[in-house]
């Protein structure tokens, strides 16, 4: 309860500034996660100095980009007071759909992309309408959607994914600029993630963004102010599914088609957003914080790789992070 006031009163003296910074860093908001990100990156560089080289950093950015995109999508839903657990299986479904439909045929790249877009929006629309109009809690709606997508895709493909992604489809996830092998390049995935974040930041400064956060903060007051809360939230689900589709393009390009594509990504995205200090239940947090949360999570996993910890430990780390972050936020609200 103190942050808002103390930021005003503590200005001036050096000691006041120091205290202000300490409060910022411990507040559990975006500064905290930024500090965490910096610490983790420093530790990685200490262990493995070559990580600081531009090429390694760009490789890291390329790997982290899909999670950033997913976290931004999840941010819209969480800040409006809901959850979207279907994004992981949507990513999987989209990749499998793309591979099967285009089957390596370059000419089909754009039509299939358009189809994926429509499919993604359809999934988001169903999530949104079932949650808002049928009043099913969003975690049930989207868990159900996760099962439906999981089953439907395997039903359609007969169990194992078939086909292949076209080369032009894979450019965004795999290639960079300038496209000369072995040289320093800025991955397209990084550019896509930056565009997505920039777009999201702008959107949150629009009337839509402010109404969305207000709906997460107090849905009744927002509805009594004339906002169609159901449609605001439905649009959040649409954005989440849309960005899951974008992430699917990046991930498909980066990693190709496997049966496991997308598995567990929903929890990664939620962990990232929560780590960024975005409040579950809505109404608090920024896009940038969600992005930093995603980078911090990815950096943590990189650190574990450096420490030669098995990748199977990842879920456990996420579990701890998610509980600690939410408990920390609950502690803050109580005082």
């Amino acid at each position, binding site marked *: 309860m103190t942050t808002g006031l103390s930021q005003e009163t503590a200005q001036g003296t050096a000691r006041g500034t120091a205290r202000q910074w300490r409060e910022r860093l411990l507040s559990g908001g975006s500064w905290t996660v930024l500090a965490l990100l910096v610490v983790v990156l420093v530790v990685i560089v200490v262990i493995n100095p070559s990580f600081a080289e531009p090429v390694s950093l760009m490789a890291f950015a390329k790997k982290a980009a899909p999670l950033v995109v997913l976290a931004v999508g999840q941010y819209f839903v969480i800040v409006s007071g809901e*959850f979207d657990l279907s994004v992981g299986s949507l990513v999987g479904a989209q990749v499998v759909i793309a591979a099967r439909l285009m089957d390596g045929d370059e000419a089909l790249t754009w039509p299939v992309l358009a189809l994926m877009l429509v499919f993604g929006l359809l999934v988001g629309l169903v999530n949104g309408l*079932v949650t808002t109009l*049928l*009043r*099913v*809690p969003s*975690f*049930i*709606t989207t*868990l*159900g*959607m*996760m*099962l*439906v997508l*999981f*089953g*439907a895709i*395997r*039903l359609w493909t007969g*169990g194992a994914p078939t086909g292949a992604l076209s080369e032009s489809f894979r450019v965004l996830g795999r290639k960079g600029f300038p496209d000369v092998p072995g040289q320093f390049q800025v991955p397209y995935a990084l550019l896509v993630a930056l565009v997505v974040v920039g777009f999201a930041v702008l959107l949150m400064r629009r009337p839509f963004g402010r109404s969305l956060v207000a709906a997460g903060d107090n849905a009744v007051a927002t509805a009594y102010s004339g906002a169609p809360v159901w449609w605001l939230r439905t649009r959040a689900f649409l954005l989440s599914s849309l960005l899951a589709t974008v992430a699917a393009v990046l991930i498909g390009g980066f990693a190709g088609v496997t049966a496991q594509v997308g598995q567990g990504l929903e*929890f990664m995205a939620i962990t990232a957003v*929560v780590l960024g200090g975005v409040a*579950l*239940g809505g109404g608090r947090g920024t896009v940038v914080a969600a992005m930093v949360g995603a980078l911090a999570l990815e950096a943590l996993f990189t650190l574990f790789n450096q420490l030669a910890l*098995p990748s*199977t*430990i*990842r*879920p*456990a*780390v*996420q*579990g*701890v992070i*998610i*509980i600690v972050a*939410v*408990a920390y936020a*609950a*502690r803050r609200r*109580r005082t």
Partner: protein
Amino acid sequence: MTAGTGARRYHLGSTEIVYLALVGILVVAGVLVAVRGGNLFAQGNVSYMLTQTSLLGFVAVGQTLVVLCRSLDLSVGYVVALCSLIGATTMAGDPSRVWLGVVAALAVAAGVGLVNGLIISALRVNAFIATLGMGLIVKGFLDTRFKGPEGEVPFAFQTFGYTRIGPVPVSTIVMLLVAAAAFVLLTRTRAGYHMFAVGGNLDVARLSGVRTGRTLVLAHVLCSLCAGVAGLLIAARFGTGNALVYSYGLDLDSIAAVVLGGTLLFGGRGSVIGTVGGVAILAVLDTAFNVLDVNPFFKDVLRGVIIIAAVALYARRQIDPASRRVRFGAKGSASRGGDVA
């Protein structure tokens, strides 16, 4: 937002609806199977059906307790897997260590439940996140520590998985006993009464002197214990422990069974008897699909649709007509020209 018409309709109890639905589904499935020249009620099918009920039954009965408290446990699937491994590795093929294995598995389960309950009640983390996080932690441990099936269950304990009395597997009987115990807990003990109160209205419970935190923790411990028993059943059936059990989707299935059984997802109302009915419905569907040779992935789709539909239907039912205040109902007012339909 409008308090609709004042007309009072007779409402069937949730439990009655569940069992009517069960009968309906049995009839439809039986006819469908018969049309295809099969018999849904052949002994093999019946005992498959009953076997199916036992595993999910344990988990769903436990889930009922936490859902009644307006909580939820998404870690049950992982607890089942964990306990199957702990049971099997502790027994290590030695008949004299059976009890040790059982105790070890149940102790671990209770521990997980205790931590879940404490995170939710003391740290005030919402149940969905707390148990999801706990599930992920257990998953991380399982994936790291166990690479495949491990441990060995002595033959004596495997009978828990296979023995039948007539068409009825022992495990189903044990499940029904556990359900009966939960029924007694909820309808005959203070702890059970208080679970309804905690789920119905936390403030009312606290104001009436109910120890709400303790009640919630107890529900979570019992829920995890039930999952632990399910894990032992898995171990008995497979002869070993297996981490991959967590991919069975028991967490969602158990919630589906609970909701189908008429327990409110938001706590305070429901019954174990309903849950057993919900489990039976899912088992009948599963068996019928098997007999009809339906693609297994279709079942996943259907599970997702069923759970959403069930919650949506009950979301409509939970608004209590009597608790709405209506001063000028359809009956009383003189000018009823433009009344809403």
